[in-house]
């Protein structure tokens, strides 16, 4: 990427930070109400500000909000200090491309999804599984982990042999 393009990229991100103050998460998906013309490299690292809002981690922070549908889950996760959360925001490609067609002056709603990777003590294995099951969410294989630790998914059947063979 040339310096010119990089400069415009940063400007675009800053535009996004200015205008994208409403990000709604629906079903761990997101809807960004913003205006930008540059494709954002995703996933974006995100931290929760509260149970209903979050901010991306980077030079130009983007703030977003979480729908009430999942705010209670986020609140419960944030209040439990025994677990560590790694949150990522991934923009939906179709929405992003549609937004890019619009001009800088028009606000657009861009959806994205929040991925939350849960880390914690192994003693919480059963509790974590029960909590998400009661919440109607099921833990998936993580992607984009920022640490390499043991992986114990309470919702995953023990068919790791196939996974390992496939990954190798």
């Amino acid at each position, binding site marked *: 990427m040339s310096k010119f393009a990089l400069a415009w990229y940063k400007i675009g991100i800053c535009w996004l930070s200015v205008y994208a103050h409403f990000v709604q998460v629906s079903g761990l998906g997101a809807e960004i109400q913003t205006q930008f013309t540059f494709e954002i490299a995703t996933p974006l690292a995100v931290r929760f500000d509260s149970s209903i809002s979050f901010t991306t981690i980077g030079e130009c922070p983007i703030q977003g909000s979480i729908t009430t549908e999942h705010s209670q889950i986020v609140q419960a996760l944030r209040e439990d200090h025994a677990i*560590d959360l790694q949150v990522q925001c991934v923009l939906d490609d179709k929405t992003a491309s549609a937004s890019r067609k619009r001009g800088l002056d028009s606000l657009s709603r861009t959806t994205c999804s929040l991925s939350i990777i849960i880390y914690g*003590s192994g003693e919480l294995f059963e509790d974590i599984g029960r909590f998400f099951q009661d919440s109607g969410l099921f833990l998936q294989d993580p992607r984009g982990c*920022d640490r390499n630790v*043991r*992986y114990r998914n309470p919702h995953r059947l023990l068919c790791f042999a196939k996974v390992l063979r496939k990954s190798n």
Partner: protein
Amino acid sequence: MQSHIEPERFGFTEPKRRRLLSAAESQEARWVQQESERQAYETGGGTKLHTPFQQRPYAEEIPQVEPGINRLVRHLGQGDQIDPPHEELLVAGQYWADTRSSCNANSFPSLLPDISGGWHHSKKTTSLTEAANPRLEPKAELDPAEILVRDVDRSHLNNPLVKKASANDEQVCFGMV
């Protein structure tokens, strides 16, 4: 034990054939007597044996032992000096003799010839199943507790920012929602 020696085939003379038959029959008679004594002793109906009972060897279990013992006896009988390989053989033979009485249908000492013509022994008692399949080992099963994130998440392998953690870390990844 019935003799299957055929005089015509092997050219044995009649006296020699009779001696062989007699020896075989007397050996069989000793085994039968020992077996009856052992059973009587085990059931409590007999008197204690004067000599330690030596169980009849299972021919299918120790086919490789007898030649070694015979060879050792042959060497010793001829006054040969016992060099290290033979000493090892002596140890193996002694071990076999010590454990012979404890042989049963399920276990026997491992005693295998080595490539140098001698014998090596293992004090590990090997089951018949293992002996029949010496290469048979339990199938390696994946321990779920040893599966790391990198085994399912290959996206960050080349990311230098990823924290390096080992399987000994207490933290566990429960997955992603």
